[in-house]
């Protein structure tokens, strides 16, 4: 029975429970709704919740736990002799899983019977051939140990599936009976249902905490794993980034310094574009522009923030890059080798950040009390003098906060640098040279690779950890500054 059916069945039991609970409660007072403690629908909901929630909870836990337990048991049963030289238990285990999947596929394709798949032991070649006939991936040399383990794996998965179905359905039915027994006039159904609802609400809100914990744990565990293979000092202070791909041999140099430098340099260029334009836009929009201009210009600028970053990435790669090359390249100043460079990524990222800086600064400038401006005008200052000498100093902490938030955005931005900044990790001052960033390297180290055992892949988690810590620090610092400033006028 597939998962969707099981889910549907549990929900159906809950729905039937709802209807039964309702009628049972009503009939307990001979249809007189006034004698019930709660509205009839609450009795129904009580039954439905009691049957669905425990069943679904067990289902989710089972789904997560079963693969872990089954692989654990099967892999510990593989004799050490079955693990070839230079291989590991994990590799053999993935072979076992492939065999199990191959047997499944072969049974589904009809090239072997279910009993043959479960018990065949004699002829490895025949088993392999039958699996190949069903167009399944097979190991090059099937050994009896691996086949036994694969069959064991299949059997356990199948048993687990049956057990899960039985347990979940039993729980749903039992819950429904429990709820139905309670459905009589005196039972405080509404209070119960509301208590459960509240717990569900709290659980939903706690997901935010869970997500953060998930992020931190996934980063910490894999980073720790990485540091057991690669010395942390060399990672943090190494000035060369030259990963070798596992299998080709040779040792990798994984120094984060060139990546941090690239990230920092591109962010600076981006901020140099975004901050003046964004800030002046905000000043003009909040102090000079009439309501009509504001109503048109502000949303139009904010469109820039709504455009997906892949669009900016392509814009950098195919429009801005070639344009810059035609000016600064061989035919122009001769500073630029190719379209992907710090400048390309920086300028485009700056465009993306304009609305970010302008909206935040706009809010902050608007929050400066009018009385401060009026006082300045009263003393004979012009509008620009008021802005420069009164409004901006008053808004400064908030604006700094906004710029810091923009900086954290720039550091965490991925697609623009992946497409626009190049792939070479370099320590150079020339902004027309290709450099790379932390985020771009996370993408290139992790894309399409799920071998969680090589330092070349695990380094991405250490990079992610660095990125997370840096952006988190910037965000907290920025929010702290903005909050502190707000308290002055509220």
């Amino acid at each position, binding site marked *: 029975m597939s998962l*969707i059916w099981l889910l549907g069945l549990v929900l159906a039991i809950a729905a039937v429970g709802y209807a039964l609970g309702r009628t049972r409660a009503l009939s307990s007072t001979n249809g007189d709704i006034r004698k019930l403690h709660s509205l009839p629908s609450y009795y129904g909901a009580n039954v439905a919740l009691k049957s669905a929630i425990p069943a679904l909870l067990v289902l989710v836990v089972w789904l997560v736990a079963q693969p872990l337990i089954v692989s654990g048991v099967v892999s510990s049963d593989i004799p050490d002799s079955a693990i070839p030289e230079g291989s590991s238990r994990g590799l053999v285990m993935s072979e076992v899983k492939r065999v199990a999947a191959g047997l499944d596929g072969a049974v589904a394709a009809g090239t072997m019977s279910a009993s043959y798949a479960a018990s065949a032991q004699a002829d490895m070649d025949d088993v392999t051939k039958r699996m190949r006939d069903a167009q399944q991936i097979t190991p090059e040399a099937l050994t009896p140990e691996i086949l036994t383990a694969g069959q064991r794996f299949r059997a356990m998965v199948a048993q687990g599936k049956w057990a899960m179905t039985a347990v979940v359905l039993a729980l749903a039915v039992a819950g429904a009976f429990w709820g139905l027994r309670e459905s009589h006039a005196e039972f405080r159904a509404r209070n119960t249902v509301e208590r459960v*609802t*509240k717990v*569900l*609400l709290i659980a*939903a*809100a706690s997901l*935010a*905490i869970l997500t*953060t914990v*998930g*992020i931190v744990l*996934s*980063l910490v*565990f*894999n980073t720790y794993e990485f540091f057991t293979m690669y010395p942390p000092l060399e990672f943090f202070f190494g000035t060369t980034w030259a990963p070798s791909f596992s299998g080709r041999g040779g040792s990798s140099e994984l120094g984060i310094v060139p990546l941090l430098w690239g990230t920092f340099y591109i962010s600076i260029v981006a901020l140099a574009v975004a901050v*003046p334009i964004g800030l*002046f*836009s905000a000043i*003009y*929009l909040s102090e000079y*522009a009439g309501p009509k201009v504001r109503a048109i210009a502000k949303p*139009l*600028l904010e*469109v*820039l923030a*709504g*455009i*997906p*970053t*892949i*669009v900016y*990435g*392509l*814009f950098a*790669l*195919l*429009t801005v890059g070639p344009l810059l090359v035609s000016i600064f390249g061989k035919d122009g100043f001769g500073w630029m080798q190719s379209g992907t460079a710090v400048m390309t990524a920086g300028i485009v990222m700056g465009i993306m950040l*304009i*609305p970010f800086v302008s909206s935040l600064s706009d809010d902050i400038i608007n929050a400066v009390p009018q009385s401060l401006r009026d006082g300045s005008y009263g*003393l*004979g200052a*012009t509008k*620009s003098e008021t802005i420069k000498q009164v409004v901006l100093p008053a808004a400064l902490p908030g604006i700094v906060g906004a710029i810091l938030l923009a900086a*954290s955005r720039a550091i*965490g*931005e*991925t*697609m623009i640098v992946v497409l626009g900044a190049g792939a070479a990790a370099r320590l150079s001052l020339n902004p027309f040279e290709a450099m790379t960033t932390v*985020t771009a390297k996370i*993408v290139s180290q*992790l*894309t399409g690779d*799920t071998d969680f055992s090589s330092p070349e892949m695990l380094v991405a*988690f250490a990079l*992610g950890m660095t*990125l*997370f810590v840096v*952006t*988190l620090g910037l965000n907290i610092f920025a929010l702290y500054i903005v909050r502190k400033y707000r308290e002055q006028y509220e």
Partner: protein
Amino acid sequence: MTDATNNPPRHKTSLHTVDARTKRRNASEARFKMYGMTAILIGLAFLAILAVSIIRAGTPAFTRTVFDMELTLTQAEFEAAEKQLMKTKAYQAVFIDQLSAKLTEQNVQVAFDGKAIDRLLGKIGGDLRAHYRANPGDLGKPVQFTLPASSRVDGYFNGKVTRDTLVDSRFLEVSDLDLVDALHEAGIIHSAFNWTFITAADSSVDNPGGAGIGASVVGSFFMMIVVLGLSLPIGVAASIYLEEFAPKNRFTDLIEVNIANLAAVPSIVFGILGLAVFIQFMHLPNSAPLVGGLVLTLMTLPTIIISTRAALKAVPPSIRDAALGVGASKMQAVFHHVLPLAMPGILTGTIIGLAQALGETAPLLLIGMVGFVAREYPDGLAEGFLNANSAMPAQIYTWAARADSAFYDKAWGGIIILLIFLLTMNIIAILLRRRFERRW
């Protein structure tokens, strides 16, 4: 300003004549205003440039050059072709032979050979083979085919490839362009709307003409179903708790701080989370829209929670008081009265959150939803969620990262499609807000 009192000996001043200092101050005022206007204009100019370059570079993806030809394949030719090792090549050869015959018959005044025609053709052998395998009855009868030309011929019609810029290669030679012109005049090739781009899946690296965004649109669609189905209920539940029920205590503060920080965590970190938790730990399938949807759900939840809380806050307390006053429980007041009134605002926020998720690329790359896995449409609902697929932005990235510049057109075209989706979603959000927004 204070200078006036410090410097008593002043020349006669008048309010009617503007003195040098005032002039300077006024000039600086005008200058400052100019800076502001320039900044806005630069910002808007960037927007305009972006829009123009997307439309200009993206429209070629929607047209393609096609051969319109009647072809007759005999049973014997079919069987011969099926026996060959490279079957699609054999079909292509049949097509070239018949086209050559037709050209000779029509007395086209241009030098050509089979190789030249081969260079002009897209990957048509597969199309032909598929047609005859599906319709064996058509064998021996003349059938009208519309088949794609190579992407370089597309480039010639778009103005990307010209006689001056073209360098002879195994893909196209300058002399071939004469043949293209002749074929165009004879009405054999012409431009047509490129339905393949809308409906097809990603193609192999050497076949830009056959690449389409259809499969990845389906991938995005299944992801959005997951995001909508999870983030709307969870986001609303979390917001209701925080806005209506949460006591002021440490735990609530912790949740609030977490939501604020998650909203600012770089999207790629969510990709790492997805890779480690859903794929490394839970062993969910690689590249599945289900996993992509889960990752994007976690990413959009803060956005949805923030906008939902604003919508709940906008419902005046008198509504709650009235409900409580006639005997509703707190839960009833919220679910029966506050929530329906806040619904338009919640939906608006949700649509904007979904639009944000739809355009997100980086986390999808980490969980393996890169473009080239989008090779076919899923067969059913469960496959739609679990089979490897890509999503629109990831597909665009894959095309942009390929070496063949013919794929760049596809990438720009893909962006137009993506932006059409985003625009539609945002317009719906704006209309919802206009239609249902209530000021209290």
